[in-house]
């Protein structure tokens, strides 16, 4: 096996393990930590279906952010929706035969990377131009944007400037998945792109990227507004109470 193939194969095994393991560890913490008090930001839904809908609007449309700030919303949405399409398109390198819907996304995915970059640059510009956002930005906030921009730019370069051997690349990743290693094309752009992606995977569970699982566990958004005993919503003999809080009653 060529040297770089071994390095990248190991890198992606490690990165995947850290990403999956790290996220599972964090999510386990979020899930196991009790929410002792009902704190939904009201007005909040009074039913489970209502909460699912609220969360869907939050995740799919960034509802609160839209109310909050149109500039952040438009740049943030461009980036995230672009990323979603790009990721969906990339599934073709990990599936054989390629799934039907991934083929559908393909034409959009090719241009989505531009939206991603525009969104990222917009968000980055705010970190310099708006004094309040400049004040709250630290080095890691800039580096995170730099990393994402670099990933998008190297990816775009391979699409529009200098094609890489995509067939061999797919063979490499399928080989990783089925433990039947195939050589990785030694194209510098590709190597940089992949190294950056692996970096992103590794830092995901130890960085602010935890907002992705975090939003689903946010009590202000995922709780049903039914704290008091109330006909039709909560029986008079029932309580929302955490185990550690119940101990105080003993």
């Amino acid at each position, binding site marked *: 096996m060529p040297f770089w193939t071994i390095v990248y194969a190991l890198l992606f095994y490690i990165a995947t393990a850290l990403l999956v393991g790290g996220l599972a560890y964090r999510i386990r913490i979020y899930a196991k*930590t009790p929410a002792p008090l009902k704190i939904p930001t009201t007005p909040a839904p009074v039913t489970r279906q209502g909460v699912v809908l609220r969360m869907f609007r939050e995740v799919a449309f960034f509802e609160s952010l839209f109310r909050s700030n149109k500039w952040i919303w438009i740049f943030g949405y461009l980036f995230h929706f672009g990323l979603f399409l790009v990721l969906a398109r990339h599934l073709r390198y990990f599936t054989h035969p390629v799934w039907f819907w991934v083929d559908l996304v393909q034409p959009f995915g090719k241009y989505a990377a531009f939206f991603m970059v525009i969104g990222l640059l917009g968000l980055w510009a705010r970190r310099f131009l708006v004094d309040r956002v400049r004040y709250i930005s630290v080095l890691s906030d800039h580096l995170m944007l730099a990393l994402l921009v670099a990933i998008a730019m190297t990816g775009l370069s391979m699409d529009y400037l200098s094609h890489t051997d995509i067939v061999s690349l797919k063979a490499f990743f399928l080989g990783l998945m089925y433990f039947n290693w195939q050589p990785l094309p030694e194209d510098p752009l590709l190597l940089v792109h992949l190294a950056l992606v692996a970096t992103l995977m590794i830092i995901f569970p130890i960085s602010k990227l935890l*907002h992705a699982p975090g939003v689903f*566990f946010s009590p202000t958004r995922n709780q049903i507004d039914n704290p008091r005993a109330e*006909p039709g919503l909560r029986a008079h003999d029932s309580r929302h109470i955490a185990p550690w809080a119940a101990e105080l009653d003993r």
Partner: protein
Amino acid sequence: MADFEIPQLKEYPVIPKIHEGVMAHSKPFVAKQEFQGALGFPGELVDNWQQVAIDKMGELNGKYRSLQVFLDSCVKCGACTDKCHYYLGTSDPKNMPVARQDLYRKVYRRYYTFAGKYFPKLVGATDLTKEVLDDWYSYFHQCSQCRRCSVFCPYGIDTAEISMAAREVMDAVGIGQKYCNEIIGKVYKIGNNLGLPEPALADTLEGLEEDIEDDTGVAVKLPLDQKGAEVLLVTPSADFFAEPHVDGLMGYAKVFHEAGISWTLSSYASEAANFGMFIGSYENMRKLSLRVREAALELGVKRIIFGECGHAWRVAYSFLNTLAGPFDFLDPKYPVPQHILEFTHDLIQRGGITLDKSANDDMVLTFHDSCNIARASRMGSKPGGQFTIPREVIKASCNHFYDMPQDTIHDATYCCGGGGGLLTDDLMELRVKGALPRMEALKFVVENYGVTHMAAICAICKSQFTKVLPYYGFGMDSIVSVHQLVSNAIVMGNKQ
């Protein structure tokens, strides 16, 4: 009038440029030993305070999902930076919600995250030094826990949760806030925030009965500790004598009288406010709440109704059942607890009371949504009832009502500037500056619709505005209780 600059009311709200450190001097008095002890906190800064604080932070992370998720999830997008009334009024960047959270988050990162342990500079993590603790004391007492930031955060991060945690950590190392902790001690000892003992309370209520009778010719009772009454009314103790609160209390009494429903106040639970929430202490909040349960059991009532109070209604509506439930000994036909406005609104709907709107014709009204009612509770059975029910009661009591601009009401409402345990004279500068966004909104309706009075449903809002309105050129008596309007308009002796 003041030894600080009073902000100018502008034609249109402006987001100020940041001015670092301009509010660093703002700190409330520290609680003395005696007040700390009563709450189970050390009396002064403990020797190994750093370790105690760090351990406490870890403990809280394990107890509150909100805290753990909020500390990890912020991406510093900046959406909240112009949402806090204290930032808008002071321009101190540490009053931006995210920056306030970061005072806590940077310490959390240092001791509890991989990145902060090994690359502190990179992620802005810092050791917990005395300077950091001082910053905490200053800026976590510049948050009124109003939750406006949480409405606008894409992840619903609520700075109130972080402020509460920070205050709990500070209490654990012996640096408590005098105002809150002294008041909680008073409730334990006497039964209410004001330290009004039973005989004085009985006297006050008798005086109010005389006032109502002089005024209306009707003998309306304000019963105290009356066993077997149908309703236990729990109301903020400011209602017993402060203006305009007391006019609201007389309004409740008249409504009960006209409805023909027996009710009582309790001297043991003569306080609706629960300052345990302000200091983030579940244990103290629970202990205070249990007084309401004990009073209800002792007096044998069937229902519990809370008077006009903002943070109190949050604790009552959202937490009471958790802290002091279950209330299976009360009448299951009614929610536990109910808000006095739900009660009055229902009566109006059913024609149970008659209101003469013209009695309030000397006023043109607007309504201030109290932060914790708007964003942390509900009234009625539908989401948003906390906005419609008070307005419907006001509109049923007067002829002239205009809302303030949309982005300053409902769940976008601005805090009065005195909530969350900051209603103390040692924070006057902060209170005046924090009221700025509400004052600008008020100015708008005063100039455009000739509004003369602002109605509120929170004891803190009422006290805060009474004090702060004059700084901005409004009359201190232009703040009124909603049940004061009901009191003026209610036609007495109509029902048999």
